Protein backbone atom coordinates (compact mmCIF):
# COMPACT_ATOMS: atom_id res chain seq x y z
CA UNK A 1 0.00 0.00 0.00
CA UNK A 2 1.45 3.38 -0.99
CA UNK A 3 1.75 6.26 1.50
CA UNK A 4 -1.09 8.03 -0.29
CA UNK A 5 -3.38 5.01 -0.08
CA UNK A 6 -2.48 4.46 3.58
CA UNK A 7 -3.26 8.09 4.43
CA UNK A 8 -6.55 8.01 2.53
CA UNK A 9 -7.61 4.90 4.39
CA UNK A 10 -6.83 6.64 7.69
CA UNK A 11 -8.76 9.75 6.66
CA UNK A 12 -11.79 7.73 5.59
CA UNK A 13 -11.89 6.18 9.02
CA UNK A 14 -11.15 9.39 10.96
CA UNK A 15 -13.35 11.80 9.03
CA UNK A 16 -16.12 9.63 7.74
CA UNK A 17 -17.89 9.73 4.40
CA UNK A 18 -21.47 10.33 3.37
CA UNK A 19 -23.17 9.53 0.07
CA UNK A 20 -24.34 12.46 -2.12
CA UNK A 21 -27.95 11.71 -1.15
CA UNK A 22 -27.04 11.79 2.54
CA UNK A 23 -25.12 15.03 2.01
CA UNK A 24 -28.14 16.53 0.29
CA UNK A 25 -30.32 15.63 3.28
CA UNK A 26 -27.81 17.14 5.69
CA UNK A 27 -27.88 20.37 3.66
CA UNK A 28 -31.65 20.47 4.15
CA UNK A 29 -31.00 20.21 7.89
CA UNK A 30 -28.63 23.21 7.91
CA UNK A 31 -25.39 21.65 6.70
CA UNK A 32 -23.22 23.34 4.12
CA UNK A 33 -21.87 21.70 0.99
CA UNK A 34 -18.42 22.94 -0.04
CA UNK A 35 -17.23 22.26 -3.58
CA UNK A 36 -13.42 22.37 -3.44
CA UNK A 37 -12.75 21.68 -7.13
CA UNK A 38 -10.86 24.05 -9.43
CA UNK A 39 -12.68 26.78 -11.43
CA UNK A 40 -12.35 24.84 -14.72
CA UNK A 41 -14.08 21.83 -13.15
CA UNK A 42 -16.79 23.94 -11.53
CA UNK A 43 -17.48 25.49 -14.94
CA UNK A 44 -18.83 22.08 -15.99
CA UNK A 45 -21.37 22.11 -13.17
CA UNK A 46 -21.59 22.25 -9.38
CA UNK A 47 -24.29 21.34 -6.83
CA UNK A 48 -26.82 24.16 -6.73
CA UNK A 49 -26.47 24.89 -3.05
CA UNK A 50 -22.68 24.55 -2.81
CA UNK A 51 -20.22 27.10 -1.54
CA UNK A 52 -17.35 27.05 -4.02
CA UNK A 53 -13.82 27.49 -2.70
CA UNK A 54 -11.04 25.72 -4.56
CA UNK A 55 -8.80 23.46 -2.47
CA UNK A 56 -5.84 25.84 -2.57
CA UNK A 57 -7.82 28.69 -0.97
CA UNK A 58 -9.91 26.67 1.42
CA UNK A 59 -8.06 27.21 4.71
CA UNK A 60 -7.46 30.88 3.83
CA UNK A 61 -11.06 31.75 3.09
CA UNK A 62 -13.28 29.40 5.05
CA UNK A 63 -13.37 31.36 8.33
CA UNK A 64 -14.78 34.45 6.65
CA UNK A 65 -17.40 32.43 4.83
CA UNK A 66 -18.27 30.04 7.65
CA UNK A 67 -17.49 31.53 11.06
CA UNK A 68 -19.46 28.82 12.90
CA UNK A 69 -17.03 25.96 13.54
CA UNK A 70 -19.86 23.72 14.79
CA UNK A 71 -21.74 23.79 11.48
CA UNK A 72 -21.88 20.53 9.54
CA UNK A 73 -19.64 20.82 6.49
CA UNK A 74 -19.87 18.39 3.57
CA UNK A 75 -16.82 18.54 1.38
CA UNK A 76 -17.08 17.57 -2.26
CA UNK A 77 -14.54 17.15 -5.06
CA UNK A 78 -14.85 15.26 -8.35
CA UNK A 79 -14.35 11.68 -7.11
CA UNK A 80 -14.07 11.84 -3.32
CA UNK A 81 -10.31 11.82 -2.84
CA UNK A 82 -9.26 15.47 -2.70
CA UNK A 83 -12.27 16.15 -0.50
CA UNK A 84 -10.79 13.86 2.16
CA UNK A 85 -7.61 15.95 2.33
CA UNK A 86 -9.69 19.14 2.26
CA UNK A 87 -11.90 17.85 5.07
CA UNK A 88 -8.80 17.04 7.07
CA UNK A 89 -7.60 20.64 6.59
CA UNK A 90 -10.94 21.96 7.87
CA UNK A 91 -10.84 19.64 10.86
CA UNK A 92 -7.36 20.91 11.74
CA UNK A 93 -8.70 24.48 11.61
CA UNK A 94 -11.20 23.55 14.31
CA UNK A 95 -14.34 22.59 12.37
CA UNK A 96 -15.83 19.79 14.39
CA UNK A 97 -18.48 18.33 12.06
CA UNK A 98 -16.85 17.65 8.71
CA UNK A 99 -17.64 14.83 6.28
CA UNK A 100 -16.37 13.96 2.83
CA UNK A 101 -18.85 13.20 0.05
CA UNK A 102 -17.95 9.80 -1.40
CA UNK A 103 -17.85 9.61 -5.17
CA UNK A 104 -17.79 13.42 -5.39
CA UNK A 105 -19.58 15.43 -8.05
CA UNK A 106 -19.51 12.53 -10.55
CA UNK A 107 -21.69 10.43 -8.27
CA UNK A 108 -23.77 13.50 -7.30
CA UNK A 109 -24.71 13.91 -10.97
CA UNK A 110 -25.24 10.18 -11.52
CA UNK A 111 -27.73 10.14 -8.65
CA UNK A 112 -29.72 12.89 -10.33
CA UNK A 113 -29.19 15.47 -7.58
CA UNK A 114 -29.58 19.19 -8.39
CA UNK A 115 -26.66 21.04 -9.93
CA UNK A 116 -26.15 24.14 -12.05
CA UNK A 117 -23.66 25.48 -14.55
CA UNK A 118 -22.44 28.51 -12.61
CA UNK A 119 -21.36 31.73 -14.24
CA UNK A 120 -17.59 31.48 -14.26
CA UNK A 121 -14.78 33.83 -15.09
CA UNK A 122 -12.48 33.26 -18.01
CA UNK A 123 -8.71 33.75 -17.75
CA UNK A 124 -8.95 37.40 -18.86
CA UNK A 125 -11.54 38.17 -16.21
CA UNK A 126 -9.57 36.36 -13.52
CA UNK A 127 -6.54 38.54 -14.36
CA UNK A 128 -8.52 41.78 -14.72
CA UNK A 129 -10.40 41.43 -11.44
CA UNK A 130 -7.66 39.67 -9.44
CA UNK A 131 -7.56 42.42 -6.77
CA UNK A 132 -11.31 42.15 -6.28
CA UNK A 133 -11.53 38.38 -6.44
CA UNK A 134 -8.95 38.17 -3.66
CA UNK A 135 -11.33 40.10 -1.38
CA UNK A 136 -13.19 37.51 0.71
CA UNK A 137 -16.36 39.63 0.41
CA UNK A 138 -16.30 39.26 -3.39
CA UNK A 139 -14.36 36.21 -4.54
CA UNK A 140 -14.94 34.55 -7.91
CA UNK A 141 -18.60 34.08 -7.09
CA UNK A 142 -19.18 37.77 -6.34
CA UNK A 143 -17.28 38.75 -9.46
CA UNK A 144 -19.48 36.44 -11.54
CA UNK A 145 -22.49 38.00 -9.85
CA UNK A 146 -21.32 41.47 -10.93
CA UNK A 147 -20.90 40.18 -14.49
CA UNK A 148 -24.53 39.16 -14.47
CA UNK A 149 -25.73 42.48 -12.99
CA UNK A 150 -27.38 45.44 -14.66
CA UNK A 151 -27.10 49.02 -13.43
CA UNK A 152 -28.92 51.98 -14.94
CA UNK A 153 -27.25 55.37 -14.65
CA UNK A 154 -29.46 58.43 -14.89
CA UNK A 155 -27.21 60.96 -16.54
CA UNK A 156 -23.71 60.73 -18.01
CA UNK A 157 -22.69 63.97 -16.33
CA UNK A 158 -20.67 64.93 -13.26
CA UNK A 159 -22.00 62.13 -11.04
CA UNK A 160 -22.71 59.57 -13.75
CA UNK A 161 -19.17 59.82 -15.16
CA UNK A 162 -17.17 58.56 -12.16
CA UNK A 163 -19.95 56.17 -11.18
CA UNK A 164 -19.99 54.61 -14.66
CA UNK A 165 -16.19 54.44 -14.84
CA UNK A 166 -15.87 52.57 -11.55
CA UNK A 167 -18.84 50.30 -12.22
CA UNK A 168 -17.38 49.38 -15.62
CA UNK A 169 -13.92 48.90 -14.13
CA UNK A 170 -15.40 46.69 -11.40
CA UNK A 171 -16.97 44.44 -14.02
CA UNK A 172 -20.70 45.15 -13.79
CA UNK A 173 -21.93 43.28 -16.86
CA UNK A 174 -24.46 45.75 -18.24
CA UNK A 175 -24.52 49.51 -17.80
CA UNK A 176 -27.51 51.43 -19.15
CA UNK A 177 -27.01 55.18 -19.46
CA UNK A 178 -29.93 57.57 -19.89
CA UNK A 179 -28.93 60.95 -21.29
CA UNK A 180 -30.36 62.94 -24.17
CA UNK A 181 -27.67 65.64 -24.13
CA UNK A 182 -24.57 66.24 -26.23
CA UNK A 183 -21.09 66.91 -24.86
CA UNK A 184 -20.35 70.59 -24.29
CA UNK A 185 -16.87 71.95 -23.61
CA UNK A 186 -18.08 73.33 -20.27
CA UNK A 187 -18.87 69.74 -19.17
CA UNK A 188 -15.27 68.57 -19.35
CA UNK A 189 -14.15 70.15 -16.05
CA UNK A 190 -16.09 67.44 -14.20
CA UNK A 191 -17.66 64.93 -16.62
CA UNK A 192 -14.65 62.67 -16.97
CA UNK A 193 -16.35 60.19 -19.29
CA UNK A 194 -16.02 62.70 -22.10
CA UNK A 195 -13.00 64.07 -23.90
CA UNK A 196 -12.34 67.20 -25.86
CA UNK A 197 -12.67 65.23 -29.09
CA UNK A 198 -16.22 64.24 -28.11
CA UNK A 199 -17.53 67.80 -27.88
CA UNK A 200 -20.74 68.02 -29.89
CA UNK A 201 -21.41 64.27 -29.91
CA UNK A 202 -24.19 62.53 -27.93
CA UNK A 203 -23.14 61.85 -24.36
CA UNK A 204 -24.32 58.24 -24.51
CA UNK A 205 -22.04 57.64 -27.54
CA UNK A 206 -19.09 59.30 -25.85
CA UNK A 207 -19.76 57.30 -22.68
CA UNK A 208 -19.92 54.02 -24.56
CA UNK A 209 -16.62 54.78 -26.29
CA UNK A 210 -14.82 55.60 -23.03
CA UNK A 211 -16.27 52.71 -21.03
CA UNK A 212 -15.56 50.12 -23.70
CA UNK A 213 -11.99 51.39 -23.98
CA UNK A 214 -11.67 50.85 -20.23
CA UNK A 215 -13.40 47.46 -20.16
CA UNK A 216 -14.52 45.85 -23.44
CA UNK A 217 -16.33 43.14 -21.47
CA UNK A 218 -19.02 45.53 -20.28
CA UNK A 219 -22.14 45.99 -22.36
CA UNK A 220 -23.00 49.69 -22.49
CA UNK A 221 -26.54 50.53 -23.53
CA UNK A 222 -27.10 54.15 -24.44
CA UNK A 223 -30.65 55.42 -23.97
CA UNK A 224 -30.81 58.79 -25.68
CA UNK A 225 -34.18 59.79 -24.30
CA UNK A 226 -35.63 62.34 -21.94
CA UNK A 227 -37.11 60.50 -18.93
CA UNK A 228 -40.86 61.04 -18.65
CA UNK A 229 -43.74 59.43 -16.84
CA UNK A 230 -44.59 57.62 -20.08
CA UNK A 231 -41.26 55.94 -20.71
CA UNK A 232 -39.69 55.55 -17.25
CA UNK A 233 -41.02 52.09 -16.41
CA UNK A 234 -40.08 50.77 -19.85
CA UNK A 235 -36.56 52.15 -19.47
CA UNK A 236 -36.12 50.86 -15.88
CA UNK A 237 -37.24 47.34 -16.78
CA UNK A 238 -34.66 44.63 -16.16
CA UNK A 239 -32.22 46.69 -14.09
CA UNK A 240 -31.05 45.73 -10.60
CA UNK A 241 -29.97 49.16 -9.34
CA UNK A 242 -30.66 52.75 -10.41
CA UNK A 243 -27.89 55.33 -9.89
CA UNK A 244 -29.39 58.81 -9.91
CA UNK A 245 -26.91 61.32 -11.25
CA UNK A 246 -29.50 63.65 -12.76
CA UNK A 247 -29.10 67.40 -12.62
CA UNK A 248 -32.66 68.57 -12.01
CA UNK A 249 -35.52 68.11 -9.58
CA UNK A 250 -38.21 66.89 -12.03
CA UNK A 251 -36.06 63.89 -12.99
CA UNK A 252 -35.08 63.16 -9.39
CA UNK A 253 -38.74 62.95 -8.31
CA UNK A 254 -39.65 60.85 -11.33
CA UNK A 255 -36.75 58.47 -10.61
CA UNK A 256 -37.76 58.24 -6.95
CA UNK A 257 -41.38 57.51 -7.72
CA UNK A 258 -40.53 54.83 -10.28
CA UNK A 259 -38.00 53.20 -7.94
CA UNK A 260 -40.64 53.06 -5.19
CA UNK A 261 -43.21 51.54 -7.55
CA UNK A 262 -40.77 48.97 -8.91
CA UNK A 263 -39.02 48.32 -5.54
CA UNK A 264 -35.68 49.24 -7.06
CA UNK A 265 -32.79 50.64 -5.03
CA UNK A 266 -32.26 54.32 -5.82
CA UNK A 267 -28.62 55.26 -5.23
CA UNK A 268 -28.85 58.99 -4.70
CA UNK A 269 -26.17 61.61 -5.17
CA UNK A 270 -26.36 65.39 -5.56
CA UNK A 271 -23.85 68.22 -5.59
CA UNK A 272 -23.89 71.98 -5.29
CA UNK A 273 -20.75 74.14 -5.49
CA UNK A 274 -18.48 72.57 -2.82
CA UNK A 275 -21.16 70.45 -1.14
CA UNK A 276 -22.37 66.97 -1.92
CA UNK A 277 -24.66 64.32 -0.50
CA UNK A 278 -25.26 60.62 -1.02
CA UNK A 279 -27.78 58.11 0.24
CA UNK A 280 -29.67 54.97 -0.75
CA UNK A 281 -33.47 55.15 -0.98
CA UNK A 282 -34.91 51.67 -1.05
CA UNK A 283 -38.09 51.34 1.00
CA UNK A 284 -38.99 48.08 -0.77
CA UNK A 285 -35.59 46.55 -0.04
CA UNK A 286 -34.44 44.27 2.77
CA UNK A 287 -33.44 47.21 4.97
CA UNK A 288 -36.68 49.21 4.57
CA UNK A 289 -35.99 52.89 5.11
CA UNK A 290 -37.17 56.10 3.48
CA UNK A 291 -37.66 57.22 -0.11
CA UNK A 292 -36.50 60.59 -1.46
CA UNK A 293 -39.94 62.07 -0.81
CA UNK A 294 -39.69 61.12 2.88
CA UNK A 295 -36.70 63.44 3.03
CA UNK A 296 -37.99 66.14 0.72
CA UNK A 297 -41.71 65.70 -0.02
CA UNK A 298 -41.78 68.25 -2.85
CA UNK A 299 -39.31 69.99 -5.12
CA UNK A 300 -38.53 73.64 -4.47
CA UNK A 301 -40.12 76.30 -6.66
CA UNK A 302 -37.98 77.32 -9.65
CA UNK A 303 -36.69 80.53 -8.04
CA UNK A 304 -35.25 78.51 -5.16
CA UNK A 305 -33.71 75.77 -7.25
CA UNK A 306 -30.55 77.04 -8.91
CA UNK A 307 -28.91 74.51 -11.22
CA UNK A 308 -25.20 73.79 -11.40
CA UNK A 309 -25.08 75.84 -14.59
CA UNK A 310 -26.18 78.88 -12.62
CA UNK A 311 -24.44 78.16 -9.33
CA UNK A 312 -21.23 76.46 -10.44
CA UNK A 313 -19.71 73.30 -9.04
CA UNK A 314 -16.18 72.28 -8.14
CA UNK A 315 -15.40 69.44 -10.55
CA UNK A 316 -13.97 67.16 -7.87
CA UNK A 317 -17.22 67.21 -5.89
CA UNK A 318 -19.30 65.09 -8.28
CA UNK A 319 -16.18 62.92 -8.59
CA UNK A 320 -16.30 62.16 -4.88
CA UNK A 321 -20.04 61.72 -4.66
CA UNK A 322 -20.34 59.71 -7.89
CA UNK A 323 -17.63 57.38 -6.63
CA UNK A 324 -19.56 56.88 -3.39
CA UNK A 325 -22.62 56.06 -5.50
CA UNK A 326 -20.62 53.43 -7.41
CA UNK A 327 -19.55 51.87 -4.12
CA UNK A 328 -23.12 51.78 -2.83
CA UNK A 329 -24.33 50.20 -6.07
CA UNK A 330 -21.63 47.51 -5.84
CA UNK A 331 -22.48 46.79 -2.20
CA UNK A 332 -26.12 46.33 -3.13
CA UNK A 333 -25.30 44.08 -6.08
CA UNK A 334 -23.02 41.95 -3.94
CA UNK A 335 -25.30 42.09 -0.89
CA UNK A 336 -22.32 43.06 1.27
CA UNK A 337 -21.87 45.68 3.98
CA UNK A 338 -24.35 48.28 5.15
CA UNK A 339 -25.88 50.41 2.40
CA UNK A 340 -26.53 54.09 3.12
CA UNK A 341 -30.18 53.35 3.79
CA UNK A 342 -31.69 55.80 6.27
CA UNK A 343 -28.52 57.85 6.27
CA UNK A 344 -27.70 60.98 4.31
CA UNK A 345 -23.95 61.33 3.97
CA UNK A 346 -23.12 65.02 3.48
CA UNK A 347 -19.74 66.30 2.41
CA UNK A 348 -18.62 69.87 2.98
CA UNK A 349 -15.77 70.29 0.53
CA UNK A 350 -14.50 73.61 1.81
CA UNK A 351 -14.63 72.54 5.44
CA UNK A 352 -13.27 69.08 4.54
CA UNK A 353 -15.92 67.40 6.67
CA UNK A 354 -18.27 64.46 6.24
CA UNK A 355 -21.47 64.43 8.30
CA UNK A 356 -23.98 61.64 8.51
CA UNK A 357 -27.60 62.63 9.09
CA UNK A 358 -30.31 60.16 10.02
CA UNK A 359 -33.30 60.01 7.70
CA UNK A 360 -36.39 58.02 8.66
CA UNK A 361 -39.29 56.77 6.58
CA UNK A 362 -42.13 59.29 6.88
CA UNK A 363 -45.07 57.23 8.18
CA UNK A 364 -47.37 59.53 6.20
CA UNK A 365 -45.43 59.30 2.90
CA UNK A 366 -48.04 58.71 0.19
CA UNK A 367 -45.45 57.13 -2.08
CA UNK A 368 -43.69 54.58 0.09
CA UNK A 369 -45.41 54.26 3.45
CA UNK A 370 -49.01 53.51 2.61
CA UNK A 371 -50.69 50.30 1.58
CA UNK A 372 -53.07 52.16 -0.73
CA UNK A 373 -52.57 53.22 -4.32
CA UNK A 374 -49.36 55.09 -5.04
CA UNK A 375 -50.02 58.53 -6.58
CA UNK A 376 -49.59 58.89 -10.33
CA UNK A 377 -46.28 60.03 -11.76
CA UNK A 378 -45.81 63.79 -11.90
CA UNK A 379 -43.97 65.48 -14.75
CA UNK A 380 -42.76 68.50 -12.82
CA UNK A 381 -41.30 70.06 -15.97
CA UNK A 382 -44.60 71.80 -16.55
CA UNK A 383 -44.17 74.06 -13.56
CA UNK A 384 -40.65 73.58 -12.26
CA UNK A 385 -37.36 74.81 -13.73
CA UNK A 386 -35.04 72.11 -15.00
CA UNK A 387 -31.38 72.32 -14.04
Amino acid sequence: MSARERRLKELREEIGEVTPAEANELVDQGGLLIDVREPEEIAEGSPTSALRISRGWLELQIERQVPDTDRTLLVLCSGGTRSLFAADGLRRLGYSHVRSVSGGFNRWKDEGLAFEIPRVLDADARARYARQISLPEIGAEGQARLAGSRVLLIGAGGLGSPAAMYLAAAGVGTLGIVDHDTVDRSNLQRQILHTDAAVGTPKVESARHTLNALNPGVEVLGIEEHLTSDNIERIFEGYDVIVDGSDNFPTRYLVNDACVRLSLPNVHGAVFRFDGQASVFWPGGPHGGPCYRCLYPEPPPPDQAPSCAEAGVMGVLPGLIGTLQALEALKILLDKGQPLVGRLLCFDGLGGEFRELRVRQDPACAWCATDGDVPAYIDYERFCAAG
Partner: protein
Amino acid sequence: MAEVTLRIPTPLQPYANGNGELRAEAGYVDELLERIGAEHQALVQRIRTRDGQLRPYVNVFVRRTDIRELQGLETELHDGDEVIVMPSVAGG
Protein backbone atom coordinates in the same frame (compact mmCIF):
# COMPACT_ATOMS: atom_id res chain seq x y z
CA MET B 1 -31.22 78.89 27.10
CA ALA B 2 -28.63 76.85 25.25
CA GLU B 3 -25.71 78.12 23.26
CA VAL B 4 -25.96 76.47 19.84
CA THR B 5 -24.51 76.66 16.33
CA LEU B 6 -26.67 76.90 13.24
CA ARG B 7 -24.87 75.39 10.25
CA ILE B 8 -25.80 76.94 6.94
CA PRO B 9 -25.12 75.02 3.70
CA THR B 10 -23.70 76.69 0.61
CA PRO B 11 -27.02 77.34 -1.19
CA LEU B 12 -28.32 79.40 1.74
CA GLN B 13 -25.14 81.23 2.69
CA PRO B 14 -25.92 84.25 0.46
CA TYR B 15 -28.88 84.89 2.78
CA ALA B 16 -26.66 84.85 5.88
CA ASN B 17 -24.11 87.41 4.74
CA GLY B 18 -21.98 84.56 3.40
CA ASN B 19 -21.67 82.86 6.81
CA GLY B 20 -21.36 79.10 7.00
CA GLU B 21 -22.46 79.10 10.62
CA LEU B 22 -24.17 81.40 13.10
CA ARG B 23 -24.16 81.12 16.87
CA ALA B 24 -27.10 82.01 19.06
CA GLU B 25 -28.73 81.30 22.39
CA ALA B 26 -32.10 79.57 22.23
CA GLY B 27 -34.08 76.97 24.13
CA TYR B 28 -35.97 75.51 21.14
CA VAL B 29 -35.57 75.33 17.36
CA ASP B 30 -38.37 77.84 16.67
CA GLU B 31 -36.80 80.25 19.14
CA LEU B 32 -33.45 79.83 17.38
CA LEU B 33 -35.06 80.63 14.01
CA GLU B 34 -36.80 83.68 15.55
CA ARG B 35 -33.52 85.03 16.87
CA ILE B 36 -31.60 84.33 13.69
CA GLY B 37 -34.49 85.76 11.64
CA ALA B 38 -34.25 89.09 13.46
CA GLU B 39 -30.97 89.65 11.70
CA HIS B 40 -31.22 87.35 8.68
CA GLN B 41 -34.87 87.46 7.68
CA ALA B 42 -34.31 86.17 4.12
CA LEU B 43 -32.49 83.10 5.45
CA VAL B 44 -35.28 82.08 7.79
CA GLN B 45 -37.89 82.73 5.10
CA ARG B 46 -36.16 80.08 3.02
CA ILE B 47 -36.40 77.58 5.88
CA ARG B 48 -40.00 78.08 6.99
CA THR B 49 -43.18 79.54 5.58
CA ARG B 50 -44.86 82.73 6.79
CA ASP B 51 -47.15 80.68 9.00
CA GLY B 52 -44.18 79.03 10.64
CA GLN B 53 -44.14 75.61 8.92
CA LEU B 54 -40.93 74.00 7.66
CA ARG B 55 -40.74 74.16 3.88
CA PRO B 56 -41.09 70.72 2.19
CA TYR B 57 -37.73 71.03 0.47
CA VAL B 58 -35.71 72.04 3.54
CA ASN B 59 -34.87 69.88 6.55
CA VAL B 60 -33.48 70.81 9.94
CA PHE B 61 -31.40 68.34 11.89
CA VAL B 62 -30.56 68.54 15.58
CA ARG B 63 -28.01 66.10 16.97
CA ARG B 64 -27.90 64.54 13.46
CA THR B 65 -31.62 63.73 13.63
CA ASP B 66 -34.41 65.24 11.54
CA ILE B 67 -36.48 67.44 13.87
CA ARG B 68 -39.63 65.90 12.37
CA GLU B 69 -38.49 62.74 14.16
CA LEU B 70 -38.05 64.74 17.37
CA GLN B 71 -40.52 67.45 18.41
CA GLY B 72 -40.43 69.46 15.20
CA LEU B 73 -39.82 73.16 15.68
CA GLU B 74 -40.42 72.65 19.41
CA THR B 75 -37.37 70.39 19.67
CA GLU B 76 -35.40 71.37 22.75
CA LEU B 77 -31.80 72.50 22.30
CA HIS B 78 -28.86 71.75 24.58
CA ASP B 79 -25.60 73.61 25.06
CA GLY B 80 -23.21 72.86 22.20
CA ASP B 81 -25.89 71.47 19.86
CA GLU B 82 -25.26 71.74 16.16
CA VAL B 83 -28.40 72.61 14.20
CA ILE B 84 -27.97 71.75 10.52
CA VAL B 85 -30.16 73.17 7.77
CA MET B 86 -30.23 70.92 4.71
CA PRO B 87 -32.13 72.09 1.62
CA SER B 88 -32.60 69.71 -1.29
CA VAL B 89 -30.02 70.09 -4.03
CA ALA B 90 -30.22 68.59 -7.49
CA GLY B 91 -26.86 69.21 -9.12
CA GLY B 92 -25.35 66.28 -10.92
